[in-house]
């Protein structure tokens, strides 16, 4: 066994880590900012009938959140640079020198630090969202409310859904996009490091703002936040609106940053056809983020105005329309589901060639598939509204576009099938998760056909069938791809080898219990069980009890992963090799741990990343002018 590598220490003196521009200051200033804003809001609202007639002052809540955001960003030091520039002081981009754990708790412009911050930050909120799911399933053990009162149950549903959507939107682009894209394209950093840091630090803030809804007994709308229920709800709704608004800003910026990086910072020789397929997945996702996330922001801003400034964009009796919100929300919401799916496509197609020891089969088809999905996803949003009574004459059009998406999605399956053919397949943990992705996504995708066909959708719309469908695509797709990426790249990112036996136990428990949890829910939906209900018909209790027990076991499998992380990262610390999977990817050619500036000199890309088995294939890149990498 290799000797353990030393743990990074807390930098500086004992209290040095807490004083200065860091997470702790940010929390203090954020909380202070909230109360200041709430006080000012109270002064503004005083005497306004329409505000004081209600039992909460939404102006105060929104101003509180706004000031909290300013305090949070100021506490992290986001304003130091612009302030210095305004004062005419020299303000250079600081070179990342810190090596201790403390650097993860403060503003850092190193894409590698931000990648790790994303991994653990988003992971923590994902864990909280998962706990909510466990509490939901506890209630559903019985046909009537027993574990939680109805209102609390709805809050759990809303918090689970919103937390998961908010956090998993950047579940792969956050950790792996930020960390790996510069390494994969031969760049030293992202195009806009400050924006990159901002996208991350808005994310935990959004999570905390969303969780503050608990202080007002949550919100009743689920993750979709449909108006006019949104207008009617109490102040927990304000937390939902503001948190999701922060996420929409974060998603837009992360998309801009990744697009600029991929387009502008590729190393010489990194042509579009040599670009790793994961980077293509990131690129198409970024396009969706840039075009879709601002629409969400607009929809939420109108909701914020409805609730605080007494407008009536979404209130029919005031001349507004509930349909306006539904249109705006799903114009974001459907591209959003591909924001969740496309990075997963990129991950699994990146991993399959490495463990099949074969070139990616049909590279151009894979690229066309991803771009095709991205393009078509803007033309399908009204399939969420087939029975809403809106634009009924357009339903055949949306039926067609929705079903057309299965063509480019099918490309990805063909790529996988071609890549496996005559390969030398090794079942490592990343490969197992990648293969499970295809199994789950097959079921998730084909169950979507029922929802795309209007006559079938009339049965299944708004039922547990939908719920099972999107958990198969998001959890079975995105989350499995996330774990594939984690087991594949975390050794490079942390410099520490993960335990393979625990990884395989994690995989098999997660795969089995995932399917046992969600497959029966298709039947529950077919048998008349609507979504988001705390009560159901007694004859559905057997299915629901079975699902709940499986769900608890599925939650337990996540604990195996956490145990693996703690064991490997904290206790064993076995150093990772430079290239443990024998991959041709450029990111594996740099040393582990990755040096601060990634590459000593600008690398020159000599070949594509998938030329496995090609006789006389050149190395993927020349890393130094004089030398050639393996």
């Amino acid at each position, binding site marked *: 066994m290799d000797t353990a590598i030393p743990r990074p220490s807390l930098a500086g003196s004992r209290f040095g880590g807490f004083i200065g521009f860091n997470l702790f200051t940010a929390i203090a200033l954020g909380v202070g900012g909230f109360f200041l804003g709430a006080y000012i809001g109270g002064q503004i609202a005083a005497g306004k009938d329409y505000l004081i007639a209600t039992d909460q002052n939404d102006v105060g809540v929104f101003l509180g959140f706004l000031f909290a955001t300013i305090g949070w960003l100021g506490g992290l030091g986001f304003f130091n640079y612009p302030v210095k520039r305004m004062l005419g002081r020299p303000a250079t981009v600081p070179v990342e020198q810190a090596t201790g754990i403390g650097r993860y708790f403060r503003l850092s412009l190193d894409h590698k630090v931000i990648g790790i911050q994303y991994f653990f930050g988003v992971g923590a909120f994902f864990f909280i969202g998962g706990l909510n799911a466990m509490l939901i399933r506890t209630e559903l053990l019985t046909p009537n409310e027993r574990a939680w009162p109805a209102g609390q149950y709805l809050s759990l549903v809303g918090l689970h859904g919103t937390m998961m959507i908010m956090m998993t939107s950047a579940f792969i682009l956050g950790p792996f996009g930020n960390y790996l894209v510069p390494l994969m394209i031969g760049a030293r950093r992202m195009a806009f490091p400050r924006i990159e840091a901002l996208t991350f630090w808005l994310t935990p803030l959004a999570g905390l703002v969303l969780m503050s809804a608990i202080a007002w007994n949550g919100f009743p709308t689920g993750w979709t936040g449909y108006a006019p229920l949104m207008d*009617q709800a109490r102040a927990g709704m304000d937390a939902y609106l503001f948190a999701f608004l922060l996420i929409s800003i974060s998603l837009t910026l992360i998309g801009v940053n990744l697009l600029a990086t991929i387009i502008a910072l590729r190393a010489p020789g990194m042509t579009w056809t040599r670009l790793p397929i994961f980077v293509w997945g990131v690129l198409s996702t970024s396009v969706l983020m840039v075009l879709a996330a601002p629409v969400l922001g607009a929809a939420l801003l109108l909701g914020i105005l409805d609730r605080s400034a007494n407008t009536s964009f979404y209130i029919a009796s005031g001349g507004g329309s509930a349909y306006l919100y539904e249109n705006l929300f799903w114009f974001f919401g459907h591209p959003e589901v591909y924001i969740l799916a496309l990075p997963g496509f990129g991950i699994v197609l990146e991993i399959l060639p490495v463990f099949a020891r074969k070139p990616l089969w049909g590279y151009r088809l894979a690229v066309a598939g991803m771009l095709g999905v991205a393009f078509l996803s803007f033309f399908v949003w009204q399939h969420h509204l087939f029975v809403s009574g809106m634009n009924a004459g357009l339903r055949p059009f949306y039926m067609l576009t929705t079903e057309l998406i299965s063509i480019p999605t099918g490309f990805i399956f063909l790529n996988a099938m071609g890549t496996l053919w005559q*390969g030398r397949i090794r079942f490592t943990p990343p490969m197992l998760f990648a293969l499970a992705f295809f199994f789950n996504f097959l079921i998730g995708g084909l169950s979507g056909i029922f929802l795309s066909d209007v006559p079938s959708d009339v049965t299944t719309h708004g039922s547990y069938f939908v719920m099972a469908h999107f958990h198969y695509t998001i959890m079975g797709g995105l989350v499995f791809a996330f774990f594939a990426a984690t087991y594949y790249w975390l050794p490079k990112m942390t410099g520490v080898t993960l335990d393979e036996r625990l990884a395989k136990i994690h995989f098999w428990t997660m795969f089995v219990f995932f399917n046992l949890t969600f497959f029966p829910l298709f039947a529950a939906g077919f048998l008349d069980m*609507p979504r988001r209900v705390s009560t159901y018909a007694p004859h559905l209790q057997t299915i629901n009890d079975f699902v709940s027990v499986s769900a608890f076991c599925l939650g337990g499998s996540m604990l195996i992963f956490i145990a693996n992380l703690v064991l490997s990262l904290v206790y064993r610390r076995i150093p990772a090799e430079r290239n443990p999977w024998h991959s041709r990817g450029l990111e594996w050619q740099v040393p582990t741990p990755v040096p601060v500036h990634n590459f000593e000199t600008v690398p020159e890309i000599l070949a594509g990343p998938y030329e496995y088995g090609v006789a006389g294939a050149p190395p993927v890149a020349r890393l130094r002018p004089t030398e050639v990498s393996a």
Partner: protein
Amino acid sequence: MTALPEPVARVPRHLRRIVVIWAVLTAIAVPLVVLVLGPHLPPGRMTAEAGAQVDANTVMTALITPIVLIILVYFGYTLVVFRARGSAIEDGAPVFGHAPTQTMWVAFTSIVVIALAAWGSYTLIVSAHGAGGGQGPNPIALPNGYQKSLQVQVIGQQWNWTYRFPSYGGVETDQLELPTGVGIELHVTSLDVTHSFWAYELGVKADAVPGVDNIVFVHPRKTGSFSIRCAELCGLWHGHMFQTGYVVSRDAFKSWIAAQQKAESKNQRYLPPYSGHYFPEPLRRAG
């Protein structure tokens, strides 16, 4: 992406095996799906529209069965046959693609998808008249003789459903009974937030949106009871918003509605005149 010459040694045999396994499984599975599972697919055949949904669900299930099988058989076969044994890392065949396969795949999936969309549109518009889904205030899929259908207004509110019958003096009931043998025209609307009227056995689902008159046509064929639920999250007691409705014979319906008119006559004068939608006083916070 050039198709490199492949080492032909064992390729054809593998492919033939996969196809044979798939063909056998498909020949077994598809009849099972259609004949055994099909009759149990939702939502039953109480109305013409529900029957169209059963047909659609059966066709969908039968269609995806061979697709699921080919993918699973292919993955299962390749993962077993091409698994690397031993610890030495060897490279596989350097094949970057195969243009004819790719073209065929694209063509085949396109044909299936476009046929599916065409068939779905035909069912929706022509044969099933909206298939029980809400069509909004200006329906385009009109069944024959829709002018003679019985109008029933479905009003969602937190957290119950009520029904008004304009052809019976606008009487409002808190239970739904429908006659057989006559087309029904449901007008779904809401008083407060968005609900969705889901009458499972009727095969009806239509959002109840404030300010909107959402029209559904449904043709009951058999008598019996059906369950009504709310399928769109509408606040605190969303999960409790269910009722049981009944499809009854025409005579039974006539006596039921007469009894309702008599029982509700005292309350009639408090109701607003019948209208496509109603705007109550805006209630901005209700918990």
